[in-house]
């Protein structure tokens, strides 16, 4: 199935020689158009290939590769990226069809790639097989699925670690219940699982990125592609997220001799991680940028507090020594959840205003439809939480499990949302 060109964030809006395969660049061309396979026919080899994108981009690795009809690479030296224009000088080679493969990432580290052809003198069979419109965005679907999985896993890990710690501080500690041995054992086990999820999410994100940049490489695990990606701004954000997960692991180790200060430091770290997430999210491209990052940080933190609260509540519900205080724990967790919902609604509306062109975008763009789905499932989760408060006490746990499942679906949709290009 051919992935629509809109999957890529930075799109090629023009090139010299022109890309005859892209419906964006040349609106009238159709997939399977014979002109796409061999491109324009030029009298001589151009001195350079110039690519113009719709936004400023950064190169991945060498950025642009140009293959001669013989299969030899004729791109000379590093490509130059200034703003949204990328220029790659070429060495002259013979007549025939040349293939151009480009890989870039946008400012928010989202990957884009493409492949097109042009001919010199006369068309020929390009090395490595025909270039058709179908090969545009090849690998994007698997790359998209991996991106969604990586982001969702990161959010789950965030909620299980920072969110559960927030639950410990805001609910358990204020009730004086944070010191018990069995309570602590469950809390730290949940945090440990969260750290593990945070750590696993990063290699997954790396493979997602190389998979999404799949044109012209030997698959997502191609060492050259991995090296190029690690060397880019995406690599720096990856290292920061791994660093934050490791710091949390350090703080978990430090809790033996002074839990509350270490947990306080961990919560500050949680806010920092929410901020780092903003770098690799659409917030980085929003205007004004500080508002976008701020809204994103609050949104992620509030998500962590709610999901972590539910998970923490389920974790300690069955502990015998707390049986008498259950109602109080549930009530406090509910208050945290309501506050989180309010923050989520406010920040969510703000971010939607920044990224959607209008209410109609909710229905006629992929991004808008995903956002509408996420909103719907969120309302379901809130309804389940409300139902739990009115259920008899021995049935509440089942309602909370359903609420947690709904929240998990919300996180998956959040991952999808972060991987799709916004209309604005």
């Amino acid at each position: 199935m051919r992935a629509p060109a809109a999957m890529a964030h930075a799109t090629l809006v023009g090139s010299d020689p022109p890309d005859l395969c892209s419906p964006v660049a040349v609106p009238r061309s159709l997939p399977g158009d014979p002109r796409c396979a061999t491109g324009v026919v030029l009298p001589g080899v151009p001195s350079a290939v110039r690519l113009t994108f719709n936004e400023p981009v950064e190169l991945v690795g060498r950025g642009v590769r140009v293959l001669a009809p013989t299969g030899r690479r004729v791109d000379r030296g590093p490509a130059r990226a200034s703003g949204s224009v990328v220029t790659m000088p070429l060495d002259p080679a013979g007549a025939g069809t040349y293939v151009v493969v480009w890989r870039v990432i946008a400012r928010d580290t989202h990957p884009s790639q493409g492949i097109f052809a042009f001919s010199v003198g006369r068309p020929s069979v390009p090395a490595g097989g025909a270039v058709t419109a179908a090969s545009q965005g090849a690998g994007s679907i698997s790359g998209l699925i991996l991106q969604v999985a990586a982001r969702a896993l990161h959010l789950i890990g965030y909620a299980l670690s920072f969110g559960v710690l927030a639950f410990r501080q805001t609910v358990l500690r204020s009730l004086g219940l944070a010191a018990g041995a069995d309570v602590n054992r469950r809390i730290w086990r949940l945090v440990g699982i969260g750290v593990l999820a945070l750590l696993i999410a990063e290699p997954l994100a790396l493979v997602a990125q190389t998979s999404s940049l799949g044109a012209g490489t030997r698959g997502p695990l191609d060492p050259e592609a991995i090296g190029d990606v690690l060397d880019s701004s995406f690599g720096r954000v990856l290292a920061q997220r791994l660093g934050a997960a490791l710091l949390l692991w350090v703080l978990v180790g430090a809790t033996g001799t002074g839990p509350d200060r270490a947990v306080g430091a961990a919560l500050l770290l949680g806010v920092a991680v929410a901020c780092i997430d903003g770098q690799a999210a659409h917030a980085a491209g929003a205007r004004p940028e500080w508002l976008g990052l701020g809204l994103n940080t609050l949104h992620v933190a509030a998500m962590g507090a709610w999901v972590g609260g539910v998970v923490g509540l389920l974790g300690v519900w069955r502990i015998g020594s707390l049986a008498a205080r259950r109602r109080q724990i549930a009530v406090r967790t509910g208050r945290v959840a309501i506050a989180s919902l309010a923050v989520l609604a406010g920040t969510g509306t703000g971010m939607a205003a920044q990224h959607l062109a209008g209410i109609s975008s909710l229905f006629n763009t992929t991004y808008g439809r995903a956002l509408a789905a996420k909103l719907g499932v969120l309302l379901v989760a809130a309804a389940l939480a409300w139902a739990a408060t009115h259920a008899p006490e021995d049935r509440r746990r089942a309602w909370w499990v359903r609420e947690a499942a709904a929240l998990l679906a919300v996180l998956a949709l959040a991952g999808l949302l972060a991987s799709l290009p916004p209309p604005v």
Partner: protein
Amino acid sequence: MSGVDRLLRGRLHYGWIVAGVTFLTLLTAAGIRSTPGVLIIPLEKEFGWTRTTVSLAVSINLLLYGLFGPFAAALMDRLGVRRVMLASLALVATGVGLTTFMHTPLQLILLWGVVVGLGTGTMALVLGAYIATRWFAERRGIVMGVLTASVATGQLLFLPSLASIVVVHGWRWAVLGVSGAALVMIPLVFVLMRDDPADVGLQPYGAGADHVAAPARSSVNPATAALAGLSRGARSRDFWLLSGSFFICGASTNGLIGTHLIPASMEHGIPEVTAATLLATMGVFDLIGTLASGWLSDRVDNRYLLCWYYGLRGLSLLFLPYALGTQFLGLAAFAVFYGLDWVATVPPTVRLTADIFGKRNVGVVFGWISAGHQLGAATAAFGAGAARVWLGSYQVAFMTSGLLCLIASGLVIRIGASRGGVSQVSPAEVGASI
């Protein structure tokens, strides 16, 4: 005789002269070991060698220097300090001098890697500890501190001078200068150095009348003593946590920054002498940092100290790719921060080793933990060079190193967890094994 009596009589205890000669020797050896950092790019330009090849030579140097450590003390017991120092200085001067004639990578690896690595292996912290213990019964701490500082600072302080010689006169003159410094030390050591206070008819500085002198020559096989210490340590979980964290320490200091910061800065458009000055600034701040760390390690839980040091170091390394982009201000901040941390990890690690293994065993066990340090340095020196050749920039090397430091931070905070905590043993307790 008390120190005051001696001063009143106008005579300085010979131990201070011995300490002074040792100080100069360690400074020279440290300066020699720091030279490869300024040579990497000139050698690449002249011979066309790859970063990987030159990094391999540096890596072998660091490895042999470290692995020799546990055996060096035993060798000094067997042959006498003076003889060992003279032989090492001669070996190093010859090896370094011969590099001006080399023209194949194998010669580089043999000379800088093997010869200089082994030669400087005896002129390391272990020599300082040996002299401090043999010649001083009082004031050992200060002597040890000053000698440690000379090793650490010597690696960084000479870099600007070496770099400017390389830029103005060429790398061969810098190398000859370094070889000449080693040659100058030979007559100094020959005339002034003595193995033992008894050789000049003295007791160790501050020793009381009941002092019993250690035997002038030992009969214990150095290899056996060293390996016995290793097997004792290897059975302990805390030994592996300390060695692992110290491995990462070596990787992030000597291995990565000490070897590759100058080439990395030059690739970002910073001139060689400026980059060398940056490292020298780290050397200055390192003095302050180590003194402060020594003072702190007497008062605070050493695991927390190490946790903070490695954590801050890891964050600085994650920040370094950005700093190299902003040219000066970010790099200056990095240099200050990193410099304070450079050798600061040594006092708490030594302290923890003493607390866990007992004062009697510190020498050999710490010798092996230090060998781990140099193993890490060797791995990072080679690994960063290879990564640079494969990827085209140092970003991945810096990021990986930063993440490793954060792992080290998590490792050290878990020391003693299996035994319910580490008790603070005061240095006065002798032979107390926990």
